[in-house]
């Protein structure tokens, strides 16, 4: 039971990280990105082949690298590779494409990556995938299944907290503000000297780096990864979480993840099986999520928690306060 609850919460935590990543790409830069799970998968595979020993599979089955490196290095490589891949994809997709055209380009990106990974058995062993991933840190901890599942949940929660704090600062920084301005009106952003292409490209890459981290955590949680473990359509689950929680609002996105992914996804597991309809559960799940999105868009389009306003702080840095007073005096004169 503990293992089950821990695994539900761990998956929820990883999905929360992915939802935050998508929120940067969609909620901040305003571009409808469908390719996020391609980056999650690349992150998962890169971390897998960084931590696994060299491939001893009989050809044609094979996976590249096999560096036998520790888990943290696997995560780091996953983030770096996904960041670079984001820059490559973004440099093509974001140069002049926006809206629907951008979205379609990201769909194509996902399908290409999926096709290459699943059909080519040399890179990541095709449909059979990679398996037998080491459990991070369990070599030295030597915990039982229950204890380890709780430990891994804690690890994912720490990662989520770090991502949250990283993004929270970025949101309010001049960079975040300029990025959000390109979502609102990119012509106005350019009129005030902002390089819209470069800003959006960086936003896309930040989302990619975080997706890579989430992918690495997912791979080591499953201890195996193959094309059945990720579906391009899963990105719509994340969009559901973002819409329900509130586009652009990080706390809202976390709340939406709890609603959509943890509650609906897991609650439908307990529905009675209908004989002869093995896939009824997942169908009902998608119907419920669809209804939830429609309901939210109709009655609360801004989501449960709307995007926060960046309020002007009452107090400024001490050096400047005198200048502020001078400004006030100027006003009354």
């Amino acid at each position: 039971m503990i293992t089950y609850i821990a695994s539900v919460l761990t998956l929820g935590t990883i999905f929360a990280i992915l939802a935050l990543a998508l929120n940067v790409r969609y909620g901040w830069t305003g571009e409808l990105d469908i390719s996020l799970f391609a980056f999650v998968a690349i992150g998962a595979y890169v971390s897998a082949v960084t931590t696994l020993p060299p491939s001893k599979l009989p050809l044609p089955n094979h996976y590249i690298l096999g560096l036998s490196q520790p888990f943290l290095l696997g995560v780091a490589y996953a983030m770096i590779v996904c960041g670079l891949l984001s820059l490559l994809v973004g440099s093509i997709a974001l140069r002049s494409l926006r809206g629907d055209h951008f979205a379609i380009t990201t769909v194509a990106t996902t399908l290409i990556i999926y096709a290459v990974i699943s059909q080519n058995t040399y890179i990541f062993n095709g449909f059979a995938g990679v398996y037998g991933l080491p459990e991070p840190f369990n070599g030295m901890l030597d915990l039982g299944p229950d204890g380890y599942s709780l430990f891994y949940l804690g690890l994912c929660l720490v990662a989520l907290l770090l991502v949250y704090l990283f993004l929270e600062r970025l949101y309010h920084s001049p960079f975040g503000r300029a990025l959000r301005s390109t979502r609102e009106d990119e012509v106005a952003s350019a009129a005030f000297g902002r390089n819209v292409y470069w800003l959006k490209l960086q936003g896309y890459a930040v989302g990619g780096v975080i997706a890579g981290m989430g992918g690495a955590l997912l791979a080591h949680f499953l201890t195996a990864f193959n094309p059945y473990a990720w579906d391009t359509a899963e990105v719509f689950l994340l969009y559901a979480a973002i819409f329900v929680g509130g586009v652009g609002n990080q706390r809202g996105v976390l709340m939406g993840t709890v609603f959509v992914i943890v509650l609906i996804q897991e609650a439908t597991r307990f529905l009675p099986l209908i004989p002869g309809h093995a896939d009824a559960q997942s169908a009902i799940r998608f119907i419920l999520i669809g209804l939830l999105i429609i309901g939210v868009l109709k009655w609360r389009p801004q989501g449960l928690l709307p995007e926060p306003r960046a309020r002007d702080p009452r107090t400024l840095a001490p050096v400047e306060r005198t200048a502020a007073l001078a400004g006030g005096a100027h006003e009354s004169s």
Partner: protein
Amino acid sequence: MSQAEIPDPILEVVHVSKSYGGVQAVKECTFGVARGSVTGLIGPNGAGKSTLINLASGFVKPDSGTIRFDGADIQGKPMHQVSRLGLMRTFQSPREWPGLTVMENMLLASPPRGRDALWRAYLQPGKLRQAEDVDRVRARELLRDFNLYDLRDELAGNLSGGQKRLLEFARIAFAQPQMVLLDEPQSGVNPVLADRMIEAILRLNADGITVLLIEHNLPFVERLCPRVVVMALGTSIAAGSMDELRADADVLDAYLGQVPVSV
């Protein structure tokens, strides 16, 4: 053509042409704007005034011709680079960032100066905070001047049309470019506010900002602009004071009888 030489032009448009498909929007247009002046740009609908502003600001690229700003060729440069050189513009309908607050709209008018680099948010938070606070102090002062101070935490999209216009002027005053191109600053604003607008434009000019403004309201132009350039059918046909232009046969013809009468 009464195109007298401008002594110290900050903006020179030389034989600039632009066509959209079969429509020649701007054709061999040539004129200059004196540094520090408030210059008007008038002409009947379809004369190519807005296209010219789009060309000068880098929003669209000219087919041919030269646009020189402060001695440097800028034709074909993207808008954000032109803006960073100190040539900014406004739009016919105000383009605020609706989902950001009024204060955020102000802070974004500050020239980037590398401050919005991603890494700075983490590696130099203290320095960044201080620079931001200096900006905030100045932005608050300007918002007070433009009667927007109490609305600084409001989303810019919720402002009225007139308030959006004022925010636009406040942003330009904050950005302090060398020159600004104002595309119909009076459009969508209650005529009662005309005096306020004139005051705002003169204030920008007093700060050392050269102004080129497009406007259909000729009395408004006359009050503001000692020198006015007239465009018709995509090219500049005359320039001078409004009094001189009233006596100009070409100008009268452009306004009253644009279509050549076939005999």
